[in-house]
């Protein structure tokens, strides 16, 4: 893996914005159609390009777009965006799962816990599509430890803060902070959202929880699970039996099966809930997505733009292919330094075809082409093209725009 040195960022960014940044797709994504003017600041794509190349923003947030000159910290506000209209966004952050992942904590991630993001994307995306009917959903790797989702349907952009909060509430099942042991409580009637989410989790649970996370590996870990089992089920001596018997089994998988049997035996006698409820409550607590409501409900809330560079890791915020969610590996996402190195390598090979400086950036770019770099397979893959084109008329630039504001 290439190392990334934040000190190189200014130079790297320059190159990134000149050669690599996918302006065409980005611009199309931001401009939905004739009627909705995403950026009133630019008359056309090339103005956006020029401005970004001038600024070399090391951070782009959408909502308002900031670009920082690293040494001057000027804030450049690109866009007279209308606060009333904003995409519905979600931010899923791995640190919110620290209580249930054993491999890493805080900003660290690894392949063992990344499955949490996979499950989150599957569960949330299904609901956004099937329950809410949202069509234009873009999932993006945040660059460090999580994923973002952008929902861009026209009707969605106009939703009030109250409705956005309501959507997050609908999608929330894990409740409570550090002082709450049991965070999921299911009622007698299981809403289809819950049962469909459980079905998704079931596909991953064994491998993720019982193998990778090994949640019943030892006393310390299985006590946490047993803490989620209500008193009345444990009080008949089963708790102590479980504790005694767990060591007899060899691995989490066996212990889990044993635990399930114990629960179902109890359940048949005291049935005030659905049968498999407790099993599901445990699975949900360990696997169900955790959303930050503040990110979604605020119409003014800023979220890092796709294709921006993460300042700490150097990784590009790349879109995630929904058809290949399981294959997505955050550790293979290019960093800006690796990209630029790649580009240099390509340039050297292509020497002679460089042309003169008088050529427009666009032309140069197409020739040298990010198409050959690591970013290109991501940007050019079929799923993202249709998505971005679907959003509206192609490259049809709205006529009336206002000027750029620079503060």
């Amino acid at each position, binding site marked *: 893996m290439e190392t990334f040195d934040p000190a190189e960022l200014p130079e790297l960014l320059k190159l990134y914005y000149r050669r690599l940044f996918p302006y065409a797709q980005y611009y199309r994504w931001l401009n939905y159609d004739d009627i909705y003017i995403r950026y009133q600041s630019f008359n056309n794509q090339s103005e956006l390009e020029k401005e970004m190349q001038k600024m070399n923003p090391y951070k782009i947030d959408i909502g308002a777009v900031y670009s920082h000159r690293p040494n001057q910290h000027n804030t450049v506000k690109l866009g007279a965006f209308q606060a009333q209209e904003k995409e519905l966004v979600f931010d899923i952050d791995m640190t919110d799962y620290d209580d249930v992942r054993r491999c890493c904590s805080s900003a660290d991630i690894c392949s063992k816990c990344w499955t949490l993001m996979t499950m989150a994307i599957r569960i949330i995306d299904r609901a956004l599509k099937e329950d*809410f009917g949202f069509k234009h959903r873009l999932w993006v790797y945040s660059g460090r430890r999580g994923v973002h989702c952008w929902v861009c349907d026209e009707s969605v952009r106009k939703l009030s803060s109250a409705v956005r909060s309501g959507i997050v509430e609908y999608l929330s099942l894990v409740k409570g902070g550090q002082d709450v042991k049991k965070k999921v409580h299911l009622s007698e009637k299981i809403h289809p959202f819950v049962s469909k989410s459980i079905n998704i989790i079931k596909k991953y649970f064994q491998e993720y929880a019982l193998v990778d996370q090994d949640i019943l590996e030892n006393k310390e870990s299985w006590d946490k699970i047993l803490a989620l089992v209500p008193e009345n089920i444990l009080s008949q001596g089963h708790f102590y039996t479980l504790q005694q018997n767990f060591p007899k089994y060899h691995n989490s998988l066996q212990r889990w099966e044993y635990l399930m049997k114990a629960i179902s035996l109890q359940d048949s006698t005291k049935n005030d809930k659905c049968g498999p409820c407790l099993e599901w409550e445990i699975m949900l607590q360990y696997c169900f997505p955790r959303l930050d409501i503040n990110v979604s409900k605020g119409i003014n809330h800023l979220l890092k733009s796709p294709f921006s560079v993460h300042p700490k890791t150097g990784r590009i915020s790349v879109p995630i292919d929904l058809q290949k969610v399981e294959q997505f590996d955050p550790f293979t996402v290019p960093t800006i330094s690796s990209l630029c190195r790649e580009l240099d390598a390509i340039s050297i090979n292509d020497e002679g075809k460089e042309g003169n400086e008088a050529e427009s950036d666009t032309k140069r770019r197409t020739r040298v082409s990010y198409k050959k770099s690591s970013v290109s397979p991501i940007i050019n893959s079929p799923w993202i093209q249709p998505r971005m084109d679907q959003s509206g008329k192609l490259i049809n630039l709205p006529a009336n725009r206002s000027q750029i504001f620079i503060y």
Partner: protein
Amino acid sequence: MQFSRANWKRLRLTGDQRNVCYPHSLQFYLEPPSESISLIEFESLAIDRVKLLKAVENLGVSYVKGAEPYQSKLESEIRRLKFSFRVSKSGKEIEDLRRWFIQQEMDLLRFRFSILPKDKIQNFLKDSHLHFEAISDDEKKLREPEILASSPSLSGSKTDWESESVYKIPFADALDLFRGRKVYLESGFAYVPLKDIVAIVLNEFRAKLSKALAVSRKIRPLYFHSYTGQDYSTQKNAGKISLDQIDSLSTRSFPPCMRQLHKALRENHHLRHGGRMQYGLFLKGIGLTLEQALQFWKQEFIRGKMDPDKFDKGYSYNIRHSFGKEGKRTDYTPFSCMKIILTNPPSQGDYHGCPFRHSDQELLKQKLQSYKISPGGIHQILDLVKGTHYQVACQKYFEMIHNVDDCGFSLSHPNQFFFESQRILSGNKDIRKESIQPETPQPKPGVQKAKDASSALACLNSSLEMDMEGLEDYFSE
């Protein structure tokens, strides 16, 4: 909101006509009427509306809402009052009134919605700009398990399911349902059973009504006297009353609400919480000190065979609390007439509230007779009560027991009653109007009635003027 005179007459006619047939036309009042109306006409319409709302409230207190006989009684009340449904907005003065108003309007709407025939429901929803459509039986069947699993209001019984209509509405219109996952969502639509639609409609209505009231808050209500005077919380008179005076004071200077509370306390050696609050704070307002209050209540409760220790443990804390000596240390103010009339109505075993508001006619008549009010006076009082002029009725009572033609003030607080009474009885010379006429002969009932009606109206109008004067100051926040 304005009505022109001509149009108002026309509206009246329309109202009457409509009431000949079934009173189920339901309004969401999305657009207010936009004609001019005189203040008197507005007052009259507002009073009518309040009469209706009070009928709603009364029935809601006496019967179980939604069941018989509540439903049929309410229906006949609406017919009887020949209500014109156009007026929806009225002024609000204080939070109490506003909340009360909204609550009664909600109850009324719930009732009227419940008697809407099924075919009219769809029209009502359309007219109210609520995009609801009922789904076909096939569509319902297709989603049966999902809808049943999502909606807590559906019991799951076969018969219920078959008869229940399900409406398909954009999910954003069902916020309170979908946020708690209490409804089935599919492709951006919520599938809402009829029972839950009512909740949505009510919420919409409440939101709109709230907004409308907020806009119109500059219009003061004309059917209750506003309270612009002092609140009798400062203890200027503290210590001027002795405990052994209370019995005689209760008959001479207490308003009927406090008179009956005192009597009940003496007879039962006990009062429930509502009564203790209302009466206790009143006593504080007339000048009882904390020590006196503690002694007063304890004495009486002990007569009721209460253990002195129990009193100290249970009740004395509350008394000290109401004097601001415990807990938050808020010095609670004695209740105004408005507060007593509008909030916390008494139930069986309670003696608080306003007798003119909360006692039925027969009981009130007996009470007034026991207080030795003349039949003519009683008749006038009952008439005023029928017209919902409770405070004016109380003023009439004041006039009768003090033997004056005109009480000389606009009553809005029990402690005001006491204060004015003491003023008269102590022969105070600098009172505003000449109300001391100890040898006034008993006027003929007919004349008296007309005179009193006009003086009642004069009182109303003068209080209105007073209100209007204070309007700007009151609202400059």
